[in-house]
């Protein structure tokens, strides 16, 4: 009895705690993230591209920046991003918020690329006349030097990911880089395991599930996403034969209720046509009778 009371109390406190956490207005952004800057120079073009991304992903809750048409029925209220409070945040803070999400706000880390995320911020900044951008010293061309190698152990179903950069001075192993692994699915990317960091030789080991359905020969599309302080964000898409071969015929291959007219079920075609023909035949019979009546009355 007492035990369950304690449990209830803890649950209650937890609930209050988590609720107040959601309600908290300020974001707790780590100092290094706060100082992060965009490697893309914000201009009219980036803002324009950002607007398209914003309209797709953000406008439904935040409204149009500066128009104060944000959705005030949500808790916490998604702020108008043109307002001074948002504009007072650093680019790094905005980037962090965009990456992590909170409460009803989803994380955009895996749905938007880094470039897209910075362009969205560029659009938000275009509403602030006083804003002066500090461009990151990260060289975006450096990401092109990075090579991601996948090593699949089909016995243990482990995938080793090695990340290297081919610098002019020689091969550099990317240490302590953030690695995410995803598998492309119907409606988006499925993350495999957790976000890992590369070891001293630039490698990480992922346990790959054994039961993921692949295509007819078991191929899966594996997306590796690398995030490095120096080299930035790199993504590679690999076709790997590691899934369960699945040969599901398409739902629109056979005759079915939901299919196109040409692939309508036979029973519907037969029933509909025969009823229509039957009724048509009877109506013709009636018309014939009318002609007969007319003929009979002729002098």
């Amino acid at each position, binding site marked *: 009895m007492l035990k369950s009371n304690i449990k209830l109390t803890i649950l209650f406190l937890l609930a209050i705690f988590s609720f107040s956490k959601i309600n908290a207005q300020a974001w707790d952004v780590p100092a290094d993230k706060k100082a992060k800057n965009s490697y893309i120079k914000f201009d009219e073009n980036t803002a324009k591209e950002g607007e398209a991304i914003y309209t797709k992903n953000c406008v*439904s*809750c935040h409204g149009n920046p500066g128009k104060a048409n944000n*959705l005030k029925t949500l808790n916490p209220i998604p702020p108008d991003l043109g307002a001074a409070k948002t504009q007072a945040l650093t680019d790094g803070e905005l980037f962090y918020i965009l990456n992590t999400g909170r409460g009803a706000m989803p994380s955009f880390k895996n749905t938007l690329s880094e470039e897209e995320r910075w362009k969205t911020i560029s659009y938000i900044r275009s509403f602030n006349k006083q804003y002066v951008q500090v461009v990151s010293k990260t060289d975006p061309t450096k990401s092109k030097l990075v090579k991601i190698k996948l090593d699949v152990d089909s016995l243990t179903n482990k995938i080793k990911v090695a990340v290297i950069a081919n610098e002019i001075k020689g091969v550099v192993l990317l240490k302590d880089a953030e690695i995410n692994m995803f598998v492309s699915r119907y409606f988006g990317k499925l993350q495999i395991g957790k976000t890992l960091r590369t070891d001293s030789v630039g490698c990480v080991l992922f346990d790959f599930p054994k039961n993921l359905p692949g295509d007819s020969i078991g191929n899966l599309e594996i997306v590796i996403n690398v995030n490095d302080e120096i080299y930035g964000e790199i993504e590679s898409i690999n076709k790997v034969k590691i899934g369960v071969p699945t040969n599901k015929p398409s739902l629109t291959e056979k005759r079915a*209720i*939901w*299919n*196109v*007219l040409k692939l*309508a*079920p036979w029973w*519907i*075609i037969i029933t*509909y046509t025969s009823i*229509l023909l039957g*009724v048509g035949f*009877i*109506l013709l*019979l*009636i018309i014939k*009778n*009318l002609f*007969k*009546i*007319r*003929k*009979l*009355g*002729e002098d």
Partner: protein
Amino acid sequence: MMDQSKKNKITSDLLKPIGITKTFHIWMGFLTLSLAVCLYAYMFQLDKGLVVTGLRDYVSWGMYISNFVFFVATSLIGMLISAVLGLSGVKWASPLARIAEIIALAFAAVAGLVIVSDMGHPERLLNVFMYGRLQSPIVWDVTVVTVYVLISALLLYIPLIPDFKICHEKLVDIPKPLRNIYKLLSLNWKGTEDQEKLLKKSVWILSILIIPVALAIHTVTSWLFASTSRVGWDSTIFGPYFVTGAFVSGTAAVIIAMFFYRNSYKLQDYITELHFDKMGKLLVLVSLVYLYFNLNEFMVPGYKMKKFDATHLHALFAGRYAIMFWLVQIVGLILPILFLLFGKMRKPLPMTVIAVAVLLGAWFKRYIIVVPTMEHPYLPIQNVPMNFKFYTPTLIETFVSLAPFILVLMIITILSKVVPIIPIQETIEHHEESK
């Protein structure tokens, strides 16, 4: 053999309403003017799109589709009176058969137009014929409504053949082209035994054929709703529920028509109090059956109150639609049944008043079937303006919805000015038999 003077009296009595009178001009003028107003509203909708209506993403079937269901429903009465009662040898119903058939034809013919009013792009109606799928109840509905209109027209026309002959012979004052049309339509009718036999046989075949077709037209209309899994529509009894409901509104419509025909055409000798009495009893019968289906339709899910059903049923029983719902059930169904149990209430005037209440109830019942369900989708309605969540018809929509009624009245008015609404030949035969 009945004496000639009686025969002549019947003929002249029943032919009297035919022909254009001053009242007809005034009435048609009024209808034309009202139709023009409604058409103006429709032009506005055509120009601006459906945004001028209360229809939005969630409630996309509003007043228009309710109207459509009501029109299809009311048209079913032709089948009940001329086919079911006719085939079962119910003699008293035969003078009413033509009125019922006229109502059926008018409502069924206009029902198709009502659907078009719900389309922002009416020209896309052609897509149903070009790209329609046989699997879709919409294609079945288009087919079956067309067939029903055809059969109803034939069932109206064929029994009229002998009467057209009489019209041609007796109506000597009307313009010659009109008389010639009567002659053409009478198909050289001489009343010979062979002709008689063919005509009776054709009517008999059509009367049988129209029963499944009429059942199909409203069952398929109900399937437009019941073939989805939405709350309030996901019901296995929707077919019979719609069909029995259709008999209620159709019977009420015939009673109202009877009252007006009887008084304005001086047909007291032909549409007698006996007919009203019988029609009253018929209305009680069909209403009781409908009440039974209503009980099933609301009591069974109401007892279980499954999560999503509950939202819907609360809106009907105690929420936004409560007043409409209970008015429809009590004033439009239960009270008429109770009142009509008394012989005094089955007299022409009180019964017509009751029939008007029933018909209004029937219209609002269709609204209750169509609209609240659309306000209660399974997925929550989020991030939309307030007027997306709840549907309120606009004035323009109301005018556009009135247009089909005006059209029906016009068709009925014109038809009853060119054909005898009580079968002359049949009435004479009836009198001879009863002698």
